[in-house]
């Protein structure tokens, strides 16, 4: 699950692996700072989030130039038929269109089923900021997914 968080933020296997390693090292070294005020998984996600975001900021400029040359990763083909792998690619594509912070927030919310309060703890963002990010990301993702998945579930639109 830590790897998922770092991968969703960094969108690169090698960086995600290194960030995951760093996360566990930092977690071990900073274990004494875990006060038990939240679930351990939330605390661990916060370490992963900060590690990955920090790494993504360092290489943001590099990423932009790469994206321009290679195109965004995970973009689904026009023949998407709604199989699991197609849906995976569509989801990865939709996530790649979000900022790293937004991708992490929606992953925390929809995959890890974390509440807004838990996301606040994990990310250090304010509750209102988390809600705004969730709303904005949901709207954007649904629009992207609707373009690529021809299933009725994606006819739903956010208000």
């Amino acid at each position, binding site marked *: *699950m830590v*790897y*998922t968080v770092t*991968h*969703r933020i960094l969108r690169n*296997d090698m960086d*995600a*692996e290194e960030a*995951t*390693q760093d996360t*566990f*090292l930092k977690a*071990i*070294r900073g*274990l004494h700072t875990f006060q038990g005020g939240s679930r351990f998984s939330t605390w661990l996600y916060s370490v992963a989030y900060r590690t990955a975001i920090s790494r993504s900021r360092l290489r943001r400029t590099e990423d932009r130039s790469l994206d321009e040359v290679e195109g965004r990763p995970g973009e689904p083909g026009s023949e998407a038929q709604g199989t*699991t792998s197609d*849906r*995976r690619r569509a*989801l990865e594509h939709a996530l790649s269109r979000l900022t790293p912070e937004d991708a992490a927030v*929606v*992953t925390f919310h*929809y*995959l890890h*089923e974390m509440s807004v309060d838990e996301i606040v703890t994990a990310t250090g963002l304010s509750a209102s900021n988390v809600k705004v990010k969730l709303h904005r990301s*949901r709207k954007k*993702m*649904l629009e992207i*997914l609707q373009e690529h998945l021809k299933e009725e*579930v*994606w006819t*739903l*639109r*956010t208000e």
Partner: protein
Amino acid sequence: MNPADRALEDLFQEVGPERAPSHLHARILAQLADKAEIRTVPAPLLARWQWILIGLAAMGSILLAVMLPGNGSSTGWIALLMDHLPDMTSISSTLRTTLIGGAVISGILYVLDAQLNTRVRPTHG
């Protein structure tokens, strides 16, 4: 939860988490074994103030042993001090041995405690 939320959650759950490469787990464990040393410093055997008391007692013992009658070197203010101390002539030999022995043992214990206090035990997290 509104339908859009439900649809997105269903998609996230269906796709599931990213699959970490099989080597990553072993790599992390190896790195933790190499680098994640937790420095643990055992508590000293005795508190600092106890050692200060013992040190003062030891110094006093040595001083007393040197100044005891029969040494032949008690002059000046030491002799004056000795005049006010109880007469321990009859037990001076035994007492001197005991006091010096006690001081030596205190010194050994102090060195041992200092060693324990600075000891670092690497453990793997």
